[in-house]
């Protein structure tokens, strides 16, 4: 009898009969869908990195997302250490400043000595960076030569002043290049205007967005399932009432109302995640409840339920042990597709400034910050934008794949 387990069922034709459960069948179908598998992989990576972010930060692998290094502000993405980039940045700035000074000087000389910029002392400094202070009291007029062409620039001119201070900074940075640990950091995705690592910010932004997505979806799903199941099973006036309610809520321009709600709430309350959840979840459970209710109604009168009832099963038992497992497939599919929509709504609110509030930043917040800086520092927009898009893209593909796998003849396909 020990062989009983090993024996595969064989029918009269000696054909092997493999038992096929719904899940095994679905998994097999899913495996064939390459895009869905790749998406699953990518989503898992996102989630893993999000989970382990604090550990990675304390281990030094990830730069602390809160760390502001003003000297490293707005650096482009690069594999080179920050110091080099800072130098490059300052040099670029100096070049553009020098250009402006030169242009101004040319203007001046064109108009001759009509424009008197103050005392001129035609000393030739050794390098363009050197400037000799004259001892004319508090009007510290510096003479400044540019490439041998004599002209004067007064330090009351802000351009000249900045030029000088930039050159000072440049010297300082170059000197500290090897000693200052901040200059050794590598910012793969660049930094924002406060010198914070974009990569780390995006990861932490992801933690928030993904967490909101998961928790929000679960909450909305639970509420939806409960209401849908009860409504569908009990029927009658309760069903009518609940569905009337759902209909009305469906007809409302809810995002508009959510925006108003979030705008109306004071600053403090707005920062709370709970409020955010509630606001968005408030509308997300509608679809699930409708779907679950539909399934329950269609299954309610089917034979296996009658059989269970004839064996004396109570209503709750019927709902939970018999009806819901059959709707599980649909629930999973809808939940997987609800999550990206949840994240979209949350980041929409955050983009408008109505979602999570500083210092927390979700992807939406990061994008809105990036938009402000996008003309000069495109990566501040593209970094979070692309990271978020990839995640949503994969979630959508995964959701599609799950739907194909669990319910290939579904009429709910899109």
């Amino acid at each position, binding site marked *: 009898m020990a062989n009983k387990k090993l024996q595969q069922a064989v029918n009269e034709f000696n054909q092997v009969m493999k038992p096929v459960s719904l899940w095994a069948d679905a998994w097999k179908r899913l495996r064939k869908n390459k895009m869905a598998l790749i998406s699953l992989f990518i989503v898992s990576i996102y989630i893993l990195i999000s989970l382990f972010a604090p550990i990675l930060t304390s281990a030094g692998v990830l730069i602390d997302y809160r760390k502001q290094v003003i000297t490293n502000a707005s650096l482009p993405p690069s594999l080179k250490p920050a110091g080099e980039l800072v130098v490059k940045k300052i040099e670029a700035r100096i070049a553009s400043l020098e250009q402006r000074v030169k242009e101004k000087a040319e203007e001046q000389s064109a108009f001759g000595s009509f424009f008197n910029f103050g005392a001129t002392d035609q000393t030739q400094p050794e390098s363009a960076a050197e400037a000799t202070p004259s001892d004319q009291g508090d009007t510290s007029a510096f003479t400044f030569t540019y490439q041998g062409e004599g002209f004067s620039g007064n330090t009351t001119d802000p351009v000249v002043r900045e030029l000088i201070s930039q050159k000072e900074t440049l010297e300082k940075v170059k000197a500290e290049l090897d000693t200052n640990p901040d200059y050794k950091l590598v910012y793969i995705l660049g930094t924002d205007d406060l010198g914070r690592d974009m990569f780390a910010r995006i990861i932490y932004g992801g933690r928030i967005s993904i967490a909101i997505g998961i928790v929000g979806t679960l909450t909305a799903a639970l509420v939806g399932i409960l209401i849908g199941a009860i409504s569908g099973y009990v029927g009658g006036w309760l069903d009518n009432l609940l569905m009337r309610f759902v209909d*009305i809520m469906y*007809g*409302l*321009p809810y*995002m*508009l*109302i959510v*925006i*108003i*709600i979030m*705008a*109306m*709430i*004071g600053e403090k309350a707005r920062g709370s995640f709970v409020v955010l959840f509630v606001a968005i979840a408030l509308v997300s459970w509608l679809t699930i409840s409708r779907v679950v209710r539909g399934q329950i109604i269609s299954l309610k009168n089917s034979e296996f339920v009658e059989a269970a009832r004839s064996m004396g099963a109570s209503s709750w038992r019927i709902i939970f042990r018999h009806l819901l497992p059959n709707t599980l497939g649909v629930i999973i599919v809808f939940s997987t597709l609800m999550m*990206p929509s949840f994240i*979209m709504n949350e*980041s*929409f609110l955050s*983009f*408008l*400034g*109505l979602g999570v509030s500083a210092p927390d930043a979700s992807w*939406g917040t990061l*994008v*809105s910050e*990036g*938009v402000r800086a*996008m*003309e000069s520092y*495109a990566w501040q*927009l*593209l970094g979070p*934008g692309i990271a*978020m*898009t990839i995640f*949503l*893209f994969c*979630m*959508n*593909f995964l959701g*599609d794949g799950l739907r194909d796998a669990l319910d290939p003849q579904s*009429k709910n*396909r*899109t």
Partner: protein
Amino acid sequence: MARYFIRRALSLIPTLFIVITLSFFLIRLAPGGPFAREREVPEAILQNLMKRYHMDEPLFKQYLRYMGDIVRWDFGPSYRYRDLTVNEIIDRGLPVSMSLGVISLVLAAVGGVAVGIISALKQNKWQDYVAVSIAVIGISVPLFVMGPVLQLIFGMKLKILPIGQWISTHGLKAIILPALTLSFPYFAYIARLSRASILEVLRSDYIRTARAKGLKESVVVWKHVLKGALLPVVTYLGPAFSGIVVGSIVIESVFLVPGIGRPFVQSALNRDYTLIMAEVVVYSIILIIANLVVDLIYGLLDPRISYK
């Protein structure tokens, strides 16, 4: 049939009513009034302001007064922009927002159906894969990412399209980027929807009958398949328009389009009661009318619907 629609229209009035009432009380009950943000206003002037805007009256009386005003389509003065009445603000911005919205919807619908048809007929060939991928991208990229990115590429780097303002300042070209951005996610969804719907109809029994009668495949598709297959798309146009309305809030901000969407968030934050309420009313009416129109079109197209 006309009776049916009048009935439907009337039944939507309660929804409108609920929305307006809800918003009214929500907004008034929120902390901070319209003048809270300003510099210290002397008490006397504050009293005068309150009186002018009837804010010294009990809330319920204010509500009734407001409902009366709405029926006469008078939204009152703006709390923020002292020289303008809200009616003026709405009058200026509404045509802009409406044109943007309608153009986006048309783009999404026509483009989406076209791509859906191509994709369904060439199922699993390269045209299909390209179309499906674009569609998934379309529903994955948030509006507020796509808008700025397009601005960046076409407006700033390539400099071929204006990045903001509207027709009056930049000519017709100004519509392109905002309309494209706003329509893209809905175009993508409609493409997927029509593709799936066409594929499903292609598998149905009555198409098998059509082929068994010896009809040419092109006739089968254009005459027999499309009508039924596009019904789900028509149903979707309602929610799509809703989405476009909400999305226009962001798009108008990003592209500096002078519609009624741009001041929406600010007026809520500013507690500009009259303006935000007007926005809610106007938007709700637009959405209700849009849904009604969609129902009407659907009813005309599906012969199985009777309006007894």
